[in-house]
């Protein structure tokens, strides 16, 4: 049975169904508990049919944001619109959203088929229509052989599929997912990532997907919304978040390993390289993969090299004690304590204000 969990390729071109996405718009949404603000004036527009990932560290408000869209939590202020309709005060069932929970929230006493059509029965959908939708979901997910089983008899990946099936049969224009892959092992997670993306593309629905894993965001999203402490740090396509992070936080959150942020002295020159203009309180950012060995650049001492197969992550120390990571192709073969010099393109250099974290123009 386990073998069937490996990547299932979606049948190439299936008939498109009536389901299409609806736009989601949040305007100035806030959520406060007493004096603590979980969300603070979040405004966000997700176009119909977009795969939007809400990304951020734990406690940043991403799940609260999703639950407010679902209607499981009420906003302290602001409005939520779905498909142009103000749903701020509507109960969850009337918002036209489906949701996949982190725990999957399967009913333990019902079998797979009953779990999938639970909502349709609750909404008194006719048996024939119920069967049509169930058959379609089962065919999309390839879970025909599991229909009579109880959730306890399923593996994590199979439970995940059942939870997806429940979202599919709802035929809601918006699908919400709260860390749906966090309970799966690494291999299965990569497979399900592709599968969920293919599903969203095929159904044409709008997806709001919460995760703390930036690789999920980079790999799946059309739009990444990076949250921190209840506000949006950056709202952009993943390539833009990577190429031009709006804040030092965004720079340090995206990438494996994330961007190096180096505190610059007032002269702007550190470790023999001019990284920024003279000025007070500046941070220079450079991605580990933008660094090359050799040339006239930053000098550093290797403290540790981690060989990962395709490349090597080299941890170095600058003369003033700050650390610097470089990602070099292949086996770099650098012994600990070796003195190295890194070259880089000026275009790969980012500049941030240390106090506000804001990105500054780099006119080198």
């Amino acid at each position: 049975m386990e073998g069937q969990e490996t990547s299932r390729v979606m049948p190439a071109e299936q008939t498109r169904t009536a389901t299409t996405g609806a736009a989601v718009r949040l305007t100035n949404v806030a959520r406060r508990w007493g004096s603590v603000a979980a969300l603070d004036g979040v405004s966000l527009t997700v176009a119909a049919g977009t795969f939007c990932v809400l990304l951020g560290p734990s406690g940043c408000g991403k799940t609260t944001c999703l639950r407010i869209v679902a209607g499981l939590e009420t906003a302290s202020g602001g409005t939520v619109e779905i498909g142009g309709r103000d749903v701020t005060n509507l109960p969850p069932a009337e918002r036209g959203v489906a949701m996949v929970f982190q725990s999957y929230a399967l009913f333990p006493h019902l079998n797979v088929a009953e779990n999938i059509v639970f909502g349709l029965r609750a909404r008194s959908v006719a048996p024939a229509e119920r069967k049509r939708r169930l058959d379609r979901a089962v065919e999309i997910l390839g879970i025909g052989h599991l229909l009579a089983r109880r959730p306890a008899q399923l593996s994590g990946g199979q439970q995940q599929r059942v939870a997806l099936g429940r979202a599919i049969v709802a035929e809601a224009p918006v699908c919400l997912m709260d860390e749906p892959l966090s309970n799966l092992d690494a291999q299965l997670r990569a497979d399900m990532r592709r599968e969920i993306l293919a599903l969203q593309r095929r159904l044409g629905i709008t997806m709001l997907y919460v995760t703390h894993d930036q690789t999920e965001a980079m790999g799946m999203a059309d739009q990444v919304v990076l949250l921190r402490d209840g506000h949006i740090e950056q709202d952009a396509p993943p390539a833009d978040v990577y190429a031009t992070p709006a804040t030092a936080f965004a720079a340090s959150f995206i990438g494996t390993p994330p961007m190096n942020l180096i505190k610059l002295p007032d002269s702007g020159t550190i470790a023999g390289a001019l990284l920024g203009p003279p000025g007070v309180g500046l941070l220079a950012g450079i991605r580990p993969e933008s660094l090359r060995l050799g040339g006239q650049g930053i000098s550093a001492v290797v403290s540790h090299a981690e060989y990962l197969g395709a490349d090597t992550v080299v941890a170095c120390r600058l003369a003033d004690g700050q650390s610097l990571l470089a990602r070099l192709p292949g086996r770099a073969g650098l012994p600990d304590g070796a003195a190295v010099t890194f070259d880089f393109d000026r275009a790969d250099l980012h500049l941030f204000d240390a106090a506000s974290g804001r990105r500054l123009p780099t006119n080198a």
Partner: protein
Amino acid sequence: MRRESLQAWLLLLPALVLLVAFTHWPAATTIIDSFYTTPKGSRPPRFVGIENYADLMSDPVFWTALTNNAIYAVWTIPVSVILALVMALAVNTAMPGRALVRMAYFTPTMLPMIAVANIWLFFYTPDYGLFDHILSWFGGGRHNWLGDRATALPAMIAVAVWKEAGFFMIFYLAALQAMPPDLKECAALEGSSRWNFFRRVTIPLLMPTTLFVLVNAVINAFRLVDHVVVMTRGGPDNATTLLLYYIYEAGFRFWDQALAATLTVVLLGLLGLLAWLQFGVLGKRVHYR
């Protein structure tokens, strides 16, 4: 090897001694005694086969006690179980003073049986008891609740429900709190009404608890004796005589060992049969996680 088995027996010894001395040995002798006459002074017990059982079948008090006990069980079990579930659902919601209400519901369970019986004895007292007092405001007359054949058994049933419901509520409350909140949220998103969720999810998921509570309720219904001793002594005219009270009377007031032993065997057989039925019928429909 021998050393180990000696140690094992030594470790088992305390429990073994207690179980044999107070459970297995008395049970075995009771069954044996039920086939003998009662020993009296110079007359040793004599084997009489099933004569004691035949006598029991023609004993009108036995049939009264059995009928009373059946009525008592038929009312106390469902009422206390349903009340327990309703109370658990009520105190499982977010409301002010929730802890106080939970404690209030559970208090009857913590009180000793005799104290409970005394409290209710006061409630039922004619003229100045709680019930008559309240009824007098609405022009009600004098009621001898425990002295009237028609109201004595219902009065005992009310006490039992009052005492048991709070106890069973704790089990339902624990089960409700163990239910993941995701399920409720998921159902809300799927357009399930609260009633639909209760019927199709809450009730089935509470079935293991319900089975446990029912088995306990049945056992409790047949082993009640304290309230009867304190409140009515089985009267008036055996209207509140329950099986265990009849066993107590036969054994320790009439010193009729044969009758008491026979009654005990019948009661044990009855409880065994009921437990077997409950597990057989309900057990199949219970979903264990």
